[in-house]
């Protein structure tokens, strides 16, 4: 029995040690950073997602078209298009791991960037798209909501935090506007 308890305590101690990270791929971006760096921020509905070859025909990419319902930053017009790597062409499917797969009919808020005379892209990759879903009682919600920023110091992001619930779309958009105008 004592051996079991000793083992348990050691295991728990190890479990709680902050093994400094090893995951990769994305450099994390906060909503403040996304709002600052975005050339355009648009809320709308996905009306098309068409795979195609890249201009050099070396790879497959998907051109996503969104009917803009509201523009929160920039001026890309009422029909906004951007590129996401990967897609399906005929019998071939190109999976760009971690790339968001947007589907027709889905409502999203997208943070877009661009370089030169090409189509915009999702800023921060999958971090640059927020899902908007209908809730019968609460209306349109952004889920998951952005992580709140502490006033000072740091705060650990806790999964399942009861205080972090899907955010009403109006509140989300107000927060984005505040970030864009620099009022918070």
């Amino acid at each position: 029995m004592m051996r079991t308890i000793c083992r348990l305590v050691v295991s728990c101690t190890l479990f709680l040690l902050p093994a400094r990270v090893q995951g990769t791929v994305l450099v994390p971006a906060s909503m403040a950073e996304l709002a600052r760096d975005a050339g355009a921020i648009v809320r709308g509905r996905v009306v098309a997602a068409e795979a195609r070859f890249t201009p050099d025909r070396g790879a497959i990419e998907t051109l996503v078209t969104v009917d803009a319902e509201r523009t929160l930053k920039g001026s890309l017009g009422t029909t906004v298009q951007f590129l996401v790597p990967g897609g399906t062409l005929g019998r071939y499917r190109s999976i760009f791991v971690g790339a968001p797969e947007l589907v027709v009919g889905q409502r999203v808020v997208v943070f877009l960037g661009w370089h030169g005379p090409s189509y915009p892209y999702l800023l921060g990759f999958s971090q640059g798209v927020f899902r908007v879903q209908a809730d019968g009682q609460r209306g349109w919600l952004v889920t998951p909501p952005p992580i709140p920023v502490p006033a000072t110091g740091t705060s650990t992001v806790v999964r399942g935090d009861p205080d972090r619930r899907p955010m009403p779309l109006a509140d989300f958009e107000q927060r984005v506007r505040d970030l864009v105008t620099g009022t918070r």
Partner: protein
Amino acid sequence: MTEHRKPTHTAQAAGQPGNVRPFRALLFFWLISSFVLSHAAPALAYLEFGVQVGDRRVALKWGRVPVRYFINDQGVAGVGPNDLQAAANRAFSTWQAVPTSSIAYQFVGFTSALPREEDGQSTLGFASRPDLDRVLASTNILLDQTTGEIIEADIFFNSAFPWSVAPSGEPDKYDLESIALHEVGHLSGLGHSALGETEMRADGGRLVIAAEAAMFPIAFPPGNVSGRTLRADDIAGISDLYPEAGFSDAGSISGRVTRDGRGVFGAHVVAFDPADGSLVGQFSLDTEGRFSILGLRPGPHIVRLEPLDDADVVSFFAADQPVDLDFRVTFFDRLVVVPRGGDSGSIELKVVGK
């Protein structure tokens, strides 16, 4: 886009007579729960990619091993092609060394082909991708949808970032071997693990502070080299995809996640082994809320579940999948005993909304 295999064995459910002495189980559970609850520990889960072939869904994996790969012959500042090849080779070797997995890889040679080109050969290399502004590296898998066969899998490392191959790492540079280890997991057929804990800073920055899987998708700080090793979750994932004989000794926990009697999709279900502190997990992957965590060491486990409400859900699941994020962290109220080579028997985890 996820695939998930069901266990093939069943066994006596945890908590039933003969499994665990009641007072020991109670003490055991209280101790662990006290630690876990007080620290909001991160959860994890390895995911396999799945692909629809006709009317069936199959796990995305290589049909033949060794997996052959090329290295692009262009380097970046401080990292030449030979450095890249050496770092990649170490990463491939780490995966190949998992004793319960049969995966194997073979370096073919250097090439001028770019990693983003879909040309039938798997290539690793640096590339400039201004459109992937916060992506350190990524894997692109090309498959034939009619057969589910992988045709090639390329890995690109973003040349816009500073890279290091120094044995102990270098300040302000990302460790190439650590990143390669993660990407080789993708190349092999693994998706992202959600294990990882982050913190927000007052300046709006987000920093990863802990992780228990190489397949966690968010970057570690530059200079860190601890990502060169695999964790229990990674080992379970690769062994599940490419099982070697020894993997049959591992057991599993399966069951359902429900809310008001209905299945919950996309919940993280995590098995914590108090004997060695390891964590292995899975997601509930259908609308019935069914899950199965494979690759577990036999013995008692603590089961915890949580919503993926701090992550980019689209990085884990297809956009149209009904992932439920609005529930509280929950523990199963008993220890679950994993039998050698078998399954715990179905358990039901009930969650409540926030």
